[in-house]
């Protein structure tokens, strides 16, 4: 813990209190502004990514029927509004790419790591504010390149978000050349953005905790985001390396992944999933942390088993490195290796189970206040259980033979990433919105959005388990081509109708977000009567966050503590009988 770092950054922040518009809102070094920039960008991608999925669902339900409003699409995508198979493959690819790399991942490690870490540890900003700014402004060209790939000749990448070569490496095979190259370049650039963010988060948590903020007084979102940053730092360079080799295969004629040039297609899969499996936990650990925070606050009760929660996060992060082969059970990898990966995969379900039981025990004997964030956190627990349990099916290698590459997998990933991550994100946005914008989100709109999303989400994704068990493969442009999928068409149409309604319900969120940002009820500093340090700062906190560096006396979950007058006890409130330290004794800002 370095007091000088705090003073230095603090002084810097105050000096630049009255910045010109462009330094305040565009090229800002304030972690809160950067977090909100990531928020706007990734919510935009979330919306577009959802739209791509709906377009895809239309074709699956009614193959060959013109998309409503599809007339505006060019001849190369959907002549007369009727989707071409090459465009369908681009939609499959770009939906996955947008959602994973440009929506969910930045929503967590771009938005909440940025926004919450300094505020929850009592720091005035990140350790490296300029690096932080560079991280966002490196993500922007990556995003622009990815969007631009839709408009180049041949269209956007069409080899799936997993981009298996040779399909992704040789243009004749996929029919897409420039689009595939832009896909690689964009993700290579995005990788640098992620790295800059990760080193910043790690350094900040290690060095800039306020006095008294010991490791085991850290709020669980900080623990989760800290461990996630380590995963990002170690995993993303592997993807970047793999992408550079793929790019060389595409443009320089090398053959790292091409057997006729001495390469090996499975090399890509090993590298991709060696990144890809930690990536899955990058997308779920921060939601777990934020849900723990919201549930404890909502139940007015300490998180049950705080230490067990921290250990579970670390165990997941460690085991996450030795399970990647479960994506490759049917790939032609040595089947004996498959048995090993099955055992590690089964074991990684244990820490997730521990976390679920601890959430349940947190609610037990609580005093649960139903707010929109709490509703989302409860939905997260309920949905994550389904995603976790369906994972056991594919962890079992023989069962995976049948369900691998079917809609069962699609159902599973959406129960984890939508039912899990996205519900947590909606909850976290509602929970920290008052801190971010100084206004509350509209409660009624929030509740309607929650219920519509919850219902239509389940009606969309739960039947996908059935589609998979019926033998429906993933990424099929026209399932009616297969006689055994004919009987599943009514279910496919049911899924699509609910997906459209689910999509429509998200407009309520957009409306609520925009309206509340400018017109919402003014928020007090601590609207949820919460304990962690961000609620001691004004809403929204000024550049530099705290007027006085907070001193931490206790852990973040002292809810309903015996002897306390109220049912919460902020981390920086001096113990009874001990006077608050005089401001001049506190390190100067």
């Amino acid at each position: 813990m370095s007091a000088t770092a705090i003073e230095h950054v603090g002084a810097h922040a105050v000096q630049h209190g009255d910045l010109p518009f462009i330094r305040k809102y565009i090229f800002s070094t304030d972690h809160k502004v950067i977090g909100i920039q990531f928020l706007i960008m990734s919510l935009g991608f979330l919306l577009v990514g959802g739209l791509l999925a709906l377009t895809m669902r239309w074709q699956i339900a009614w193959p060959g029927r013109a998309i409503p409003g599809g007339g505006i699409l060019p001849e190369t995508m959907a002549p007369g509004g009727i989707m071409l198979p090459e465009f369908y493959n681009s939609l499959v690819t770009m939906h996955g790419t947008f959602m994973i790399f440009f929506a969910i991942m930045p929503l967590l490690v771009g938005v909440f790591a940025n926004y919450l870490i300094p505020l929850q540890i009592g720091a005035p900003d990140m350790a490296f504010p300029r690096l932080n700014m560079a991280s966002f402004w490196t993500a922007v060209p990556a995003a622009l390149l990815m969007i631009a790939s839709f408009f180049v000749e041949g269209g956007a990448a069409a080899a799936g978000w997993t981009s298996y070569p040779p399909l992704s490496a040789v243009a004749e095979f996929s029919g897409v050349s420039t689009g595939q190259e832009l896909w690689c370049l964009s993700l290579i650039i995005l990788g640098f953005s992620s790295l800059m963010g990760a080193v910043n988060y790690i350094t900040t948590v290690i060095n800039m905790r306020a006095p008294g903020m010991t490791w085991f007084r850290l709020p669980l979102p900080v623990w989760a985001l800290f461990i996630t940053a380590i995963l990002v730092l170690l995993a993303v360079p592997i993807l970047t390396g793999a992408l550079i080799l793929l790019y060389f295969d595409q443009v320089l004629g090398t053959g790292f992944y091409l057997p006729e040039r001495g390469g090996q297609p499975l090399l890509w899969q090993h590298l991709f999933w060696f990144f890809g499996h930690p990536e899955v936990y990058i997308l779920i650990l921060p939601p777990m942390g934020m849900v723990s925070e919201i549930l404890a606050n909502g139940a007015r009760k300490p998180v049950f088993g705080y230490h067990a929660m921290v250990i579970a996060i670390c165990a997941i992060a460690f085991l996450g490195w030795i399970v990647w082969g479960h994506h490759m059970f049917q790939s032609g990898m040595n089947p004996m290796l498959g048995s090993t990966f099955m055992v590690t995969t089964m074991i990684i379900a244990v820490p997730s189970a521990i976390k679920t039981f601890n959430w349940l025990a947190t609610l037990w004997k609580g005093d649960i206040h139903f707010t929109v964030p709490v509703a989302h956190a409860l939905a997260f627990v309920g949905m994550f259980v389904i995603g976790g349990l369906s994972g056991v099916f594919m962890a079992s290698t023989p069962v995976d033979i049948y369900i691998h590459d079917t809609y069962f997998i699609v159902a599973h990933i959406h129960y984890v990433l939508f039912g899990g991550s996205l519900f947590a994100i909606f909850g976290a946005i509602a929970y920290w919105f008052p801190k971010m914008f100084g206004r509350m989100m509209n409660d009624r709109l929030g509740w309607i959005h929650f219920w519509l999303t919850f219902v239509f989400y389940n009606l969309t994704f739960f039947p996908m388990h059935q589609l998979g068990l019926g033998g429906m493969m993933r990424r099929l442009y026209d399932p009616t081509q297969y006689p055994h999928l004919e009987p599943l068409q009514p279910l496919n149409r049911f899924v699509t109708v609910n997906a459209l309604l689910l999509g429509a319900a998200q407009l309520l969120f957009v409306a609520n977000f925009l309206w509340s940002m400018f017109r919402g009820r003014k928020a007090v500093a601590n609207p949820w009567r919460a304990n962690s340090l961000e609620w001691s700062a004004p809403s929204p906190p000024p550049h530099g966050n705290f007027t006085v560096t907070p001193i931490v006396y206790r852990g973040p979950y002292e809810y309903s503590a015996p002897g306390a007058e109220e049912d919460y006890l902020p981390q920086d409130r001096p113990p009874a009988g001990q006077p608050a330290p005089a401001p001049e004794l506190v390190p100067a800002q």
Partner: protein
Amino acid sequence: MNWSLPENVSTFGAQIDSIYYLILGITAVIFFAVEALLIYFIIRYRHKEGRKAAYIQGSTRLEVLWTAIPLLILVLLAFQSRSVWVAVKDPARIPPDALELRVAAKQFEWNVTYPGPDGRLGTADDFTRRSQLRIPVDRPVRITLTAEDVIHSFFLPEFRVKQDAVPGMEIPVWFQATRTGEFVLGCAELCGLGHYRMRGTVTVQTAEEFDAWQREQSTQAGAAAAN
């Protein structure tokens, strides 16, 4: 809600299905228990005026309990699964008297090479048929799976068979049909714009019918070659 798998027509399929139903049973019990508890807690401990939450930090005994029990169940499942997996995928376990075929996948077809009446691949009476897999019932079939361009995935849903076909690799696949009939062969790995129509048919016949068909096809192939 229909949780049953489609009809199984391979010898090892029944073992795969029994593990599936075992996992379905275990996860269903956990699912209903956890969700019921969640809903019960939500209702039972909802906020009421004057209610105060209990101040409970945790319980080491419970943590040990709910670590050990899932661990035990999952490791047992892994070992249960392993024996079936090895029986299906271990090349050393492929029955030696199997009918040898080659399947070469390419955009967007499955080229099946049959050994002809002499029963041996790589001889003059071999012949190849596009996207038609014809096999005898009650006899193991050993397929050497290859791919010529991109990765495909050889998927026989009713036989509980799935194996990626990878360029540059020769991957053995085996199974044994338990009844005659027509079944589906599909591609399960995105392989390009015709992925959705890369389907074939599996025809399972009696040994006599299959032998007769092979002789007939082989003669035609020989005659065509002679012309």
